[in-house]
């Protein structure tokens, strides 16, 4: 099986991946005074803005999310953090082979290392944002439940899904540069098609069955719902739906990797 062989090769290059990820993270804040602190500051500032806008000004109230308006900002933050991981991974993947064209042209190494690095670096970034979220959960009056320990499973599903998509996007963008622009528009649409700023439990959605069905067909819905379960509701993750999502993710991953593998030989001359 070529897929297995390829995975084995990537595993052999894990030290390189590790170094490239740390290079990516270091380079991101190189030259800034606060350095890594920005990884905490960015989500913190975001959280404060949400709290002020949605807690004080807009003041949305919905049974599905909670009684106090403060909770809405927490709810939104639970979804925004993993969404940022997903969307920046994809948007960066669209460019990653071209940006590193010099490497692909001059050095022999498996090119899939590059999208893997992109997704992983953004994962680390996501992790760095988690302390702020964990800090605000008790502040906003929510409590931790043992179900939060299931978080790694949700992260795993999202990782496989994101990586599969990234491989596909990065390989195709080499040939069709338009994808980069299409993608940035699709991501906005996708953001609103995922229950991040609203909840699946909202009453209005119960009336429009067809909309709810469409939302359920979106794999990101179940992944984000998983995070909501872990952080916000403190309930068991929707494991049946997440299992199906994992299977879908694995299929996507296999498909994305196959496309990547078939286009691989064209990279050195096309990037």
């Amino acid at each position, binding site marked *: 099986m070529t897929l297995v062989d390829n995975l084995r090769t990537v595993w052999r290059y894990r030290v390189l991946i590790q170094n490239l990820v740390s290079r990516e993270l270091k*380079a991101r804040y190189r030259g800034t005074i606060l350095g890594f602190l920005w990884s905490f500051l960015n989500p913190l500032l975001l959280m404060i803005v949400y709290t002020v806008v949605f807690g004080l000004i807009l003041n949305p109230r919905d049974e599905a999310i909670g009684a106090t308006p403060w909770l809405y900002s927490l709810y939104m933050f639970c979804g925004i953090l993993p969404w940022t991981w997903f969307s920046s991974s994809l948007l960066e993947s669209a460019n990653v082979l071209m940006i590193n064209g010099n490497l692909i042209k*001059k050095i022999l190494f498996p090119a899939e290392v590059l999208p893997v690095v992109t997704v992983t670096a953004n994962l680390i970034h996501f992790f760095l944002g988690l302390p702020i979220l964990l800090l605000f959960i008790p502040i906003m009056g929510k409590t931790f439940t043992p179900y939060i320990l299931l978080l790694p499973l949700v992260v795993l599903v999202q990782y496989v899904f994101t990586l599969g998509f990234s491989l596909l996007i990065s390989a195709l963008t080499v040939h069709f540069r338009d994808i980069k622009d299409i993608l940035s528009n699709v991501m906005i649409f996708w953001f609103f098609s995922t229950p991040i700023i609203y909840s699946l439990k909202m009453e209005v959605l119960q009336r429009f069955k067809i909309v709810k069905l469409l939302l359920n067909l979106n794999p990101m819905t179940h992944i984000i719902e998983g995070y909501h379960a872990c952080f916000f509701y403190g309930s068991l993750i929707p494991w049946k739906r997440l299992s199906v999502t994992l299977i879908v993710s694995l299929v996507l991953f296999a498909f994305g990797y196959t496309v990547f593998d078939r286009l691989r*030989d064209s990279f050195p001359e096309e990037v």
Partner: protein
Amino acid sequence: MVAIDVDGVSRIYQKYSARHRFSTFKSALVRGDLFRTLRADEVVAALDDVTFKVEKGRTFGVIGENGSGKSTLLKLVAGISKPTSGRIAVEGKVSALIELGAGFHPEISGRENVFINGIMLGLSKKEIQQKFDEIVRFAELEDFIDAPVKTYSSGMYMRLGFSVAINVNPDILLIDEVLAVGDAAFIPKCLDRIDDFRRRKKTILFVSHDLSTVEKVCDRVVWLKSGKVMTIGEPKRVVDAYLQDVAAKQEQSFARAREERQAAAQTFEEERRENRWGLREVEIKRVTLRNLAGQEKHVYAPDEGMVIEFEVESYSKINDFVFGIGVFNSQGISCYGTNTSLEEFEPRLIQGQGRVACRIERLNLVNGTYYLDVAVHKKDGYPYDYHRNLYSFLVTSTLKDVGVARLPHHWEFSPGIDIKAPRKE
């Protein structure tokens, strides 16, 4: 034992036009035939049925003009791209010095870049730690290794890249024209390292435009021309064949430039007058440069001879006339000038048509373009017809001596001095 076996290798590159790309994108979306439509209709063969073997421990040179497929060949041997047809077998660990510091990230320090670059080139973290000091010392970057690479000069960048690549300790080293950027102190150091590799019986594939280095370091040389193998064999022989081909090409472009200049001169009479003056009581009608065998030529080797031949016509009986020539290099420095008066020829009479030839037995000039003055004038300097820099020729060779002229010389050493003479035919 064979280290590199290239067997009937071709590499076809595809040319996608912008329009073609658009139609494939559309058809890929509409018909879903992504892989099929990616095949382009226009193709260029960068390599065409190339076959050669490199024995283990040998240094193999690749020469050829720009675009002859040298770098493509190296990329195929390195495994970076795949041949369209044919087979390449490589025995041992390969390190390619195709572009130095290709993987360097400008924002992070030299130290971190050494680690990442080293890992990419196939070293383990532990190996890099062991070799780190040596890498830095060789690159002469002890004071700057913790500074971000973006602050490096291009020389520092290149030195660090070379130092990492050479310390990978491969069985096969691929070198692509990378020495061209080093300074006068660093290049000999690199060449020393390459010599060291040869002594340790490692295989080297060496691509360079520096023909004298190729002749010096290579055991065998292949000459590629538009993707095809022209000859493979002894360095001296192949380099000479290549130089002859280049000379023939230069000859053509020289002739073309001359034609163009003549055509232009007819249009711009003004400009022509600037470089030619005199009332033409005696006219120089035509000047030809020939080698000693009588062939018309514009590209010469330094040890070749040249005949400057001019056809003259005098429209009346004239008894005061001097023929002169002057050779100038591209900086306008006079390399040599003489005339019949300086050499104490006594003019008696010139009338009607005639022919004058100045035969130079050996040019003894260094490499470069030379311009020729040809004139006929009175003894007191009054010009009949003066042609200034209207003719030019080229001197090329693998020798790199400098100056205005090559003084005939040879070297002698007392027996106590151990020095190896260059390889000569």
